[in-house]
């Protein structure tokens, strides 16, 4: 009885997270990306295409802004008006930030996107009716909509290429929103194995496709509530916390020695991806 259930669990249902003591137990998946290591080589992006059955939209589709790259590498130039970019460019891998207070989740009329108990912003493709409200409300614009029926569109997956598709990931038809899932299929498998062995997932048991490919190991992925995990340590060392909306170092005079920040923290979506600022040599 749902009314009974409501009454029984009322206090739980009125709980807020992530302000709660332990936001997710025992898992909260998070990332940290070292922009100083990222070389912008695009390997992560291609790996994501391979892992997650992303369609190739072709020249026309790309021209219309309909590309489906869950992971996109952005390249920024300095804006100080130099004639040559003699400090190089800055690369930023951008994918779904798996916000704790995700603006996309509340607005979906059918609840196709929810927060899982382990802190991933899940996208249930079959539930999606394509209102695209989530994308409209995403500050990072990392949600991608299937404008066409790519699986049946010519040359996206001709018969042979069909065989490459990952059976653990649904092939999305037209009219469905999709986005980076932190390779939830890999997490699920790792969880299954861990359960079989009567333990929790250890750090390193699960790697996302982008992390696995990244030649400079700029991407770390792991469990934020596991004190043994690299991600936990990195977040802690950088004093980045899930429910903060600014970095202490930004408030200090002259900056500090910390590099961690999250994009658009001030909007308070509490993203789960921490970026480490790129470093520029001051001697040259």
């Amino acid at each position, binding site marked *: 009885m749902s009314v009974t259930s409501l009454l029984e669990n009322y206090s739980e249902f009125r709980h807020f997270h992530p302000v709660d003591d332990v936001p997710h137990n025992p898992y909260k998946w998070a990332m940290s990306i070292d922009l100083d290591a990222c070389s912008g080589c695009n390997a992560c992006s291609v790996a994501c295409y391979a892992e997650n059955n992303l369609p190739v939209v072709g020249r026309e589709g790309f021209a219309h802004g309909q590309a489906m790259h869950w992971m996109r590498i952005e390249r920024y130039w300095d804006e100080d008006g130099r004639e040559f970019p003699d400090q190089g460019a800055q690369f930023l891998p951008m994918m779904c930030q798996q916000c704790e207070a995700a603006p996309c989740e509340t607005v979906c009329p059918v609840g196709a996107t929810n927060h*899982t108990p382990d802190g991933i912003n899940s996208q249930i493709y079959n539930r999606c009716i394509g209102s695209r409200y989530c994308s409209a409300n995403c500050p990072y614009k990392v949600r991608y909509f299937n404008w066409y029926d790519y699986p049946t569109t010519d040359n996206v997956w001709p018969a042979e290429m069909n065989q490459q598709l990952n059976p653990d990931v649904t092939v999305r038809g037209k009219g469905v929103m999709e986005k980076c899932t932190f390779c939830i299929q890999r997490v699920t498998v790792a969880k299954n194995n861990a359960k*079989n062995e009567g333990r*929790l997932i250890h750090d390193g048991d699960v790697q996302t496709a982008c992390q696995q490919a990244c030649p400079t190991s700029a991407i770390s992925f792991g469990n934020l509530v596991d004190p043994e995990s690299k991600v936990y340590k990195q977040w802690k060392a950088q004093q980045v916390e899930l429910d903060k909306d600014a970095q202490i170092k930004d408030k200090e005079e002259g900056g500090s020695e910390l590099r961690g920040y999250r994009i658009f923290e001030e909007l308070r979506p509490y993203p789960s991806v921490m970026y480490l600022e790129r470093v520029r040599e001051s001697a040259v």
Partner: protein
Amino acid sequence: MHRFLRLSVLLMGLFAAVGSYAADAPQSEPMTEDDLGPAIEQPIEFPHVRHAKDMQINCMYCHTYARRSAVAGIPPLQKCIGCHNWIDSVKDKPRIKTLFEYWEAKKAIPWKKVHDLPDFVRFNHERHIKRFYFQLNRPVQEVCGYCHGDVKEMTVARRQKLLSMGWCVACHQKDHPVTAEGGTPIGNQAYWYGMRKPLIDVSGIIKAKGPNDCSVCHK
């Protein structure tokens, strides 16, 4: 005046009834528990009744992948032959003859899927077998029967359960014991799914619901 008041009370009652029905409907059992799927023609009319009932062969003897993989699997032809090579008494039966024809041609048998969930559903046999067979020590035919019905009474298997989402969910929201006497706890049950407290009943048995998070079953 009283007439209208009576009418109002009646209306309110009606609304309350409709409301609580609607609110509770998702928690109730689906309407048809037994939904017999279509009869399916298989290349060989496999007699489950002979194997599972008469011979008392464990389901997982043939469907051996069930306890370690997401799919239960059809046994390789090799396995059928492995036994039937030694059972001379039935060798001239037409079904067995067909079986050997496939074997000799080294051709796989094109079985038809009987319990065919949509592609976007992730159902893991292993987890369910682990939970109910190994952990709770339920009999194997009962455990498989939760979803597959009473296969041991069938010749060609036929879908007996609804296998709709609501049907799955109805079971996931039941409180199942976490351990049974003699059963071994699987994993570190340090956490509970879906914002629900574990339930400890009078006899001290801890009970928990199935996971309720969409991405557990939807890929």
